């Protein structure tokens, strides 16, 4: 009997160790990826990289300012559509979502969140690019907005549901109509959580390249208007990394460092925002 207890404790320890090992193993790629990006990206990072545009093939130097600005532009345009739409849809699900329509929308949002980003790119190509006969930042922004929509919708709903019901009752008891109670009391209380959801969605959109391949395409220089093919950091990383030139590879790493820096800062800030909330 005593040996049996000892054996069971041994098994317990082995399994605990294995689970810890799995967790550490899961973090090895993160450390390796970040290490490579920082070490190899730092070499190519310079002021000209951040302010210049590409030189002709074969010439040294040049930068990716146009892609950095292009990325911000496409994501910014996507936010203009995706954030209001997502937040309003989320409000509907939280406040009026007990209907069959609400359940259907909720489920569709979850399914839409799982749709591959490249098919969203194909969809926007067929819908917009093929009809307008041109790639544009607008098309890229639409693709990113569709990708952001389900995440923001569900985050808004979840965080609105976390607001204590007593707050709503107090607002209604003071004579506010329901829509004002929702906007002035519920939404304001849930705002940090919703902001977190939005920032995570925006950070993810910032790193997407597959949906931009056939929508905003790429550009070797500045796009004069958003109605032209526009360069973006992720697409440029792909183009440069798959090119045969060693110099371009170095630029791809530098661009990756900038992109990872942007995306990780946003993700970390988003999580800190929600962590601070309960206190």
């Amino acid at each position, binding site marked *: 009997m005593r040996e049996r207890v000892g054996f069971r404790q041994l098994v317990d320890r082995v399994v605990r160790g294995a689970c810890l090992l799995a967790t550490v193993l899961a973090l090895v790629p993160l450390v390796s990826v970040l290490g490579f990006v920082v070490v190899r990206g730092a070499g190519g990072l310079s002021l000209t990289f951040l302010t210049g545009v590409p030189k002709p093939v074969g010439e040294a130097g040049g930068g990716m300012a146009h892609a950095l600005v292009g990325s911000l532009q496409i994501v910014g345009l996507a936010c203009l559509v995706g954030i209001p739409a997502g937040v309003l849809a989320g409000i509907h699900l939280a406040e009026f979502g007990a209907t069959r329509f609400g359940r259907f929308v909720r489920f569709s949002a979850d*399914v839409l969140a*799982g749709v591959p980003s490249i098919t969203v790119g*194909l969809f926007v190509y067929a819908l917009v690019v093929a009809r307008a006969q041109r790639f544009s930042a607008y098309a890229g922004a639409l693709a990113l907005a569709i990708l952001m929509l389900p995440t923001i919708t569900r985050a808004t709903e979840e965080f609105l549901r976390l607001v204590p019901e007593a707050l709503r009752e107090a607002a209604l008891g003071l004579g506010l109509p329901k829509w004002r109670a929702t906007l002035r009391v519920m939404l304001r209380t849930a705002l940090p959580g919703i902001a977190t959801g939005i920032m995570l969605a925006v950070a993810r959109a910032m790193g997407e390249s597959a949906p931009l391949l056939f929508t905003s395409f790429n550009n070797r220089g500045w796009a004069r208007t958003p109605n032209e093919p526009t360069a973006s950091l992720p697409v440029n990383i792909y183009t440069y990394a798959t090119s045969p030139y060693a110099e371009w590879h170095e630029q791809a790493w530098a661009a*990756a460092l900038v*992109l990872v820096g942007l995306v990780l800062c946003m993700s970390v800030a988003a999580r800190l925002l929600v962590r601070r909330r309960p206190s």
Partner: protein
Amino acid sequence: MTVSAAPGTPRSLFGGRRTGDRLFSRLTGCFALLVLLAISSMALEMTRASAPTLLAFGAKFALGTVWDPLHRVFGALPFVWGTVVSSLLALVIAVPVSLGVAVYLSELASAWQRDVLGFLVEMLAAVPSVVYGLWGAFALAPWLRASLEPWLARWFGFLPLFQGTNQGFGMLAGGIVLSIMILPTISSVSREVLRAVPASLREGALALGATRTEMVRVAVLPYARSGLVGAALLGLGRALGETMAITMVIGNRAEISSSLFAPSYTMASVIANEFTEASDPLHLAALAELGLLLFLLTVALNIVARLLVARVGRPLGGARA
């Protein structure tokens, strides 16, 4: 949650308020409708775009093994094979690890470990796909070619899986990169599922003298099983549709090989590589049909996975999948 359920909503005294509320509900409802519109018009638009090949090839499209845009022959089987095998390989690697992560973080770790390690694992999901591709092409693939693949060939070379020349770029590299990318999905959904297991089950097992491991095995895992399967399917859905990272490491050759060292090609990769260069309408339609297949496959998987996860109890936190 509905209007009528909220106590004290003025019904008739101030007609204007009711109008305002109804307007508000309608207005926000329009935006909720956008979600439905997006997914249904996606299905419609992709079907329309792939109509030419749907009509010309029918089922032969998915079963043909020759993909030759020049001669207008489109058989997608090598891509389907590459997609399915690389995703399954990713699952084989990622499921045990993510299960270990989820069990450790939700059942065994102390509070600060849960915070710090959980945060780091979620950071894996924040790294953009194309950066994983860059890392896979310039760091992982050379290491595979120089270290892991020779080792595998030496000790397990009797298996057809580990035969052939080791080039670094290929199915194995693709599977590994995908497994890293789906790991945070599977582990975070699994954690949600484990969190939904009632505490009384755990307490009961511990009170009967079970060790932590036995508690997890007899009380937690059986209750959570369907949700954990759902988590794995959500991961599979992500792996099937992943594009940039796998395009950069899988070698992009439309071949069906039994070796994991051999290069392969996925549906998403061929779309990414050929779509902007295709000028033949039939070629474009064939690529669109690949997208349609991918879309239908992932939608079906996601529906099943969501239903399985929902069975364990609490609704999923967030739409992040």
